């Protein structure tokens, strides 16, 4: 079994990318994913991951000429793709791993438990995800396929995969940022059920365009734990929601509960930091930008490998340009949605 060290890391990455390129014709499935400013040709095998890719990605409906990217979801059962190597005996330091690759124009990620590697050549816009089998990826990948590749490609263009939910009315929207359990997902689902728009929950694409802060959709997935699922009455739309995901949550898609689907984009006018208050009614009050940054940046930076400093700068700039508010969540979803709609309607800020 090959062992990879920091010194051999870039060569290993380049070797894998070359092997995938040489075996392109052997991949059973070729899918096209159209995202904002990005057309991705995904070479894969059949399986759950290919299904997630076909149904879990947002589709850019605005006519735009995007950059072309090729991603290979590879495993040793395809052509002459090699078995994944293992990390060597040295300590694995994620920061040094990222730095070493960046010095060679590469980005990467390694998940030891599954012998799972991801590499991306920024200049060639070529990526590989090497697994032991067709669906041999970490369980969270099924909810947000290609997440790391999107992070690296968009970061190279000054945009950012952002760990936040969104809600909006009439093209104007709010970003909902906070750690897991803060109430982001329940708020987004409540808003969708009440007729508000969204460009996504969990991960959205943020672009700073002049004075505007634009959010656009990447994934169509929504998640709710069983308690939230019951509280929001989602069985009405999903009588047979299927098995719980790796987090013990129901996973479904926006169109399962909202026929109009995701909005094309939202002009983000405020950053809200939700928290479960226990009070009957919701309340929106100003919060210090420092607190808002701490709600927005850490999870987004921790969950996406590499580009940490550029991420901190981006989220700093985003926080600086948006008015920031604490959102004390009431107990009823429809009331929360009304509060956010009224907030946007009043023209605040």
């Amino acid at each position, binding site marked *: 079994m090959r062992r990879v060290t920091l010194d051999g890391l870039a060569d290993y990455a380049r070797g894998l990318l070359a092997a995938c390129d040489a075996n392109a014709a052997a991949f059973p499935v070729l899918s096209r994913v159209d995202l904002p400013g990005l057309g991705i040709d995904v070479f894969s095998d059949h399986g759950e991951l290919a299904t997630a890719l076909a149904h879990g990605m947002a589709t850019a409906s605005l006519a735009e000429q995007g950059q072309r990217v090729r991603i290979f979801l590879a495993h040793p059962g395809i052509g002459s793709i090699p078995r994944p190597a293992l*990390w060597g005996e040295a*300590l*694995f*330091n*994620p*920061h040094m791993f990222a730095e070493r690759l960046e010095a060679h124009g590469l980005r990467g990620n*390694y*998940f*030891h*438990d599954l012998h799972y590697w991801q590499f991306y050549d920024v200049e060639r816009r070529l990526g590989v995800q090497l697994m032991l089998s067709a669906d041999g990826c970490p369980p969270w990948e099924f909810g947000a396929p290609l997440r790391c590749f999107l992070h690296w490609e968009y970061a190279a263009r000054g945009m950012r995969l952002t760990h936040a939910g969104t809600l909006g009315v009439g093209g104007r929207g709010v970003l909902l940022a906070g*750690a897991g359990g803060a109430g982001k997902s329940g708020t987004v689902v409540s808003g969708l059920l009440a007729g508000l728009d969204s460009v996504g929950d969990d991960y959205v694409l943020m672009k700073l365009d002049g004075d505007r802060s634009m959010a656009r959709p990447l994934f169509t997935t929504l998640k709710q734990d069983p308690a939230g699922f019951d509280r929001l009455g989602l069985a009405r739309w999903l009588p047979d929601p299927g098995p719980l995901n790796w987090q013990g949550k129901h996973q479904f898609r926006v169109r399962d509960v909202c026929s109009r689907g995701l909005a094309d984009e939202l002009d983000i006018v405020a950053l809200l930091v939700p928290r479960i208050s226990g009070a009957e009614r919701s309340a929106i009050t100003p919060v*210090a*930008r*420092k607190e808002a*940054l*701490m709600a927005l*940046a*850490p*999870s987004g*930076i*921790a*969950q996406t490998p590499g580009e*940490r*400093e550029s991420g*901190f*700068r981006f989220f*700093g700039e985003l*926080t*600086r340009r948006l008015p920031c508010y604490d959102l004390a969540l009431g107990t009823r979803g429809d009331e929360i949605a009304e509060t956010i709609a009224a907030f946007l309607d009043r023209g605040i800020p």
Partner: protein
Amino acid sequence: MGFSAIYAVSSTDIVYETFDGDAVVLDLASGRYFGFSDSGSCVWEALIAQVPPASLVGRACGGGELSADDLDAFVARLTEFGLLSLAPEAAASALSPDLAGRLATAREALRIDMHDELADLVMVDPIHDVDEPAGWPVVKQ
């Protein structure tokens, strides 16, 4: 600690942003975030602008004065966290009028808060530090 010495940000892994006078620092190498009280933000900004701590002693701060002991303890915390280190070659700067004014109107004592809740996700060695049966991201205790 060289109390009358000059300090600088200890490495390029230390990045920071300031919002309305509140500084937030991220250590890219450790994944730890740091926040400050209002007076702490002022002193942090002064120190990274190469103002010697000694020149801050006795400065007006929140209706009182900065004491040598408080500054000494604060600088020790910053160096202990790896945010600042001695910069023997650096030339001393004077405290800007803006920072002096903000310091005088600060309302909180010198304080730095560390947030390392997500540091494990950023920095733990996911091969050698992970609980064996549970796997990543459960950290070996």
